[in-house]
């Protein structure tokens, strides 16, 4: 079948190659040798990474030169492959897979336990469903959107696993690899130029520092979001120009018809026509789209709203023939908010509506105060901001160049720019800018790639290849700092997990677990059985270091429950030193005081964690 979706490994696509005209066999052999060399160097580097040497600047501070050399070789090989004549697309795919494994597989390969503290909480929610066969919306917001957790629980039980602890760490690689196919589906709908498609895919993975790829509802919802729009853009797009007569039929006031026509009457992006989009298949695809959207609605609270806003804009711009879908999206989303998720909606609606329009406040809550964090953390945060703004700026350049080349990628613009309004509506617990970047990223990087190759007629020259190389290199350098910048706190040792496991084995139901900061591998089991408080979250300790005089206060907190445990771990101490929710060094000072007090004793300890209990419970 010959349609926009092409065929990896066999098909020649337009926009191909102008370079490497001589002896293509030699070029191909060189590309494959570079690819193999990059993978071998990476494998060699893994054993030489010293996790104990990670500084405030993140994992990059402990990466050996061979690791960086592997990435450099891979980038050069990719650029050669991108421009090589008649090279099968499977080779480009192999480069992208290698990139994903190096960038996102290094963490899971190095660490003994899953990355990120939230992962453990999500494992715990799935374990609750697996253990009880139900949900309890009053315990946590997670139970109001339980789709992802229910799936994980079902898988665990079928697989005979007690929880997702054994495999959750590999979610990063799983989701990133799954994104490859979804992006291919999306980008081929936007252009038939394979240089733009594969350069955009490459750029996605070297700029995706927010990385919705861990064991979380957002990761699943994001994969479905990309797939859903890939389907809609391939099967339901309106192609070609819209004439004035068509615009006039939309009941636009007669005087505004010329203006409306100027706004929407341009040719859409130049993706190849999808000859397989027969009416019967469109019905099938629409059913799949509805199933995917229904899953998103039941999985994540923000993603369906973004999908609705973006697709409604595409329909308003007359760029999709699925005219009724936005209404269905709205109905499904509202139905979920006001029926299964009603316990959350009822309690939180005012908090949801209150920040509407307060863009200054919402942005303030999304940007860290760099004066209050360590120098390394400030550098990482600045790198994240620079990378974000650079991608967006380059996307604007790409949009302008595409427009000047005769393309108006309205659907792409909607998907790239509509999510930018989200900070107007919500701070989203200080994470809205992350989410905005995440939702816009595929379309922004596509436009960024189009800044170099605005149309299929743009020739491949040394300048374009050089620009692509510089762009990939700079993005990759920034990515290594941005994505792995907080690695001192993002990874946990087996000893830390052993301390958590000791507490869960020892603690009677309804115990209180007190932690220095939230950054610990906790809540991965018995989610509902114990309460957790953090000293960093208590008003008593805000902005001052807990010292010996505060042990009375710590004891008072621990007496809130008949049985209490105070857990201090390596990653909590690192978190406090890096992000400063308490003054740097607080937890170390507190531990010294605890050890000198006769009111507390060490109940469990190993190299990276200590559990303290009261001597007189």
């Amino acid at each position, binding site marked *: 079948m010959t349609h926009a979706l092409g065929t990896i490994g066999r098909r020649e696509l337009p926009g191909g190659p102008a370079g490497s005209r001589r002896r293509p066999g030699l070029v191909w052999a060189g590309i494959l040798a570079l690819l193999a060399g990059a993978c071998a160097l990476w494998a060699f580097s893994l054993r030489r990474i010293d996790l104990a040497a990670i500084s405030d600047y993140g994992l990059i501070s402990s990466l050996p030169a061979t690791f960086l050399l592997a990435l450099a070789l891979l980038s050069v090989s990719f650029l050669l492959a991108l421009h090589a004549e008649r090279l099968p697309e499977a080779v480009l795919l192999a480069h992208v897979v290698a990139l994903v494994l190096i960038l996102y597989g290094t963490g899971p390969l190095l660490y003994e336990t899953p990355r990120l503290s939230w992962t453990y909480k999500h494992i715990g929610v799935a374990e609750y469903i697996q253990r009880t066969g139900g949900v309890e919306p009053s315990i946590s917001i997670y139970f109001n959107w339980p789709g992802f957790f229910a799936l994980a629980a079902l898988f665990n039980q079928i697989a005979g696993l007690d929880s997702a602890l054994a495999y959750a760490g590999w979610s990063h690689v799983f989701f990133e690899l799954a994104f490859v196919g979804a992006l291919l589906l999306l980008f081929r709908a936007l252009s038939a130029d394979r240089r733009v498609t594969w350069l955009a895919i490459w750029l996605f993975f070297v700029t995706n520092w927010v990385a919705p790829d861990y064991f979380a509802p957002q990761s699943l919802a994001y994969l479905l979001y990309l797939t859903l729009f890939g389907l809609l853009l391939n099967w339901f797009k309106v192609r070609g120009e819209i004439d004035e007569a068509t615009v006039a039929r939309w009941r636009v006031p007669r005087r505004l018809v010329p203006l409306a026509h100027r706004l929407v009457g341009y040719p859409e992006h130049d993706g190849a026509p999808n000859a397989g989009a027969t009416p019967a298949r469109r019905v*099938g695809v629409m059913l799949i789209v509805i199933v995917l959207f229904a899953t998103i609605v039941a999985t994540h609270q923000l993603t369906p709203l973004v999908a609705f806003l973006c697709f409604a804009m595409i329909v308003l711009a007359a760029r999709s023939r699925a005219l009724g879908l936005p209404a269905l999206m709205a109905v499904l989303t509202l139905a979920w908010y006001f029926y299964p998720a009603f316990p959350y909606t009822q309690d939180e609606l005012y908090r949801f509506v209150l920040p509407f329009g307060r863009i200054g406040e919402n942005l303030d809550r999304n940007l860290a105060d760099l004066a209050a964090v360590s120098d390394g953390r400030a550098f990482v945060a600045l790198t994240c901001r620079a990378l974000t703004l650079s991608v967006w700026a380059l996307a604007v350049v790409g949009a302008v160049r595409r427009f000047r080349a005769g393309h108006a990628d309205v659907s792409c613009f909607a998907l790239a720019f509509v999510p930018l309004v989200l900070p107007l509506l919500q701070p989203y617990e200080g994470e809205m800018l992350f989410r905005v970047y995440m939702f816009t990223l595929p379309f922004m990087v596509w436009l960024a790639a189009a800044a170099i190759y605005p149309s299929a007629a743009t020739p491949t020259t040394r300048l374009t290849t050089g620009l692509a190389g510089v762009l990939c290199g700079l993005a990759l350098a920034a990515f290594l700092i941005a994505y792995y910048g907080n690695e001192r706190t993002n990874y946990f040792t087996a000893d830390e997990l052993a301390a958590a496991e000791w507490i869960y084995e020892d603690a009677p139901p309804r115990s209180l677990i007190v932690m220095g900061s939230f950054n610990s591998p906790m809540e991965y089991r018995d989610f509902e059985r114990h309460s957790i408080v953090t000293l960093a979250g208590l008003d008593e300790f805000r902005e001052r270091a807990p010292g010996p005089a505060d042990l009375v206060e710590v004891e008072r907190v621990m007496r809130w429950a008949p049985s209490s445990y105070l857990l201090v771990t390596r990653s909590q101490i690192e978190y406090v030193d890096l992000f400063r929710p308490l003054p740097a060094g607080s937890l170390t000072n507190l531990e010294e005081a605890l050890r000198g007090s006769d009111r507390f004793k060490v109940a469990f300890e190993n190299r990276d964690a200590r559990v303290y209990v009261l001597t007189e419970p």
Partner: protein
Amino acid sequence: MDNHTFRRLWIWPAILVASSALAAWAVTLPGPGLVRPLAAFWFLLVCPGMAFVPLLGIGDRLVALTLGIALSLSLGVLVALGMLGLGVWSATLGLRILIGVSLAGAALQLLIPLAARATGRRRVVEAEPARQRGAAESGPAPSITEGATRQ
């Protein structure tokens, strides 16, 4: 039907039936081990979705597989939520439903092209006298089977 078309027609139904049988057997194994999680992972990740995606005629195998994975995950979520909502949570029931969905899709993958092929033959037979009358203008009859099974 040539060998290539035959293989394309049967390959996913055969994989789906084999994977369903494997998953149904693996779930009876004691403890997690290695086979049981791998069988569960493969089945839940690929089968329910790939029961239907080949019907869309997507040429690119990577894109088709991605779509199959997304649809499999979605169907898994919806089945799990359905059991939660109805208060009948059971991994065995969930697996049975998903196996049923996969086998139904496999059957559709076989039946739709075969039905189209049968319809095509009937049309060709009915059109034969007319074709013989105006053979010079009409040319060769279109192969509906080929069209229906193109992927």
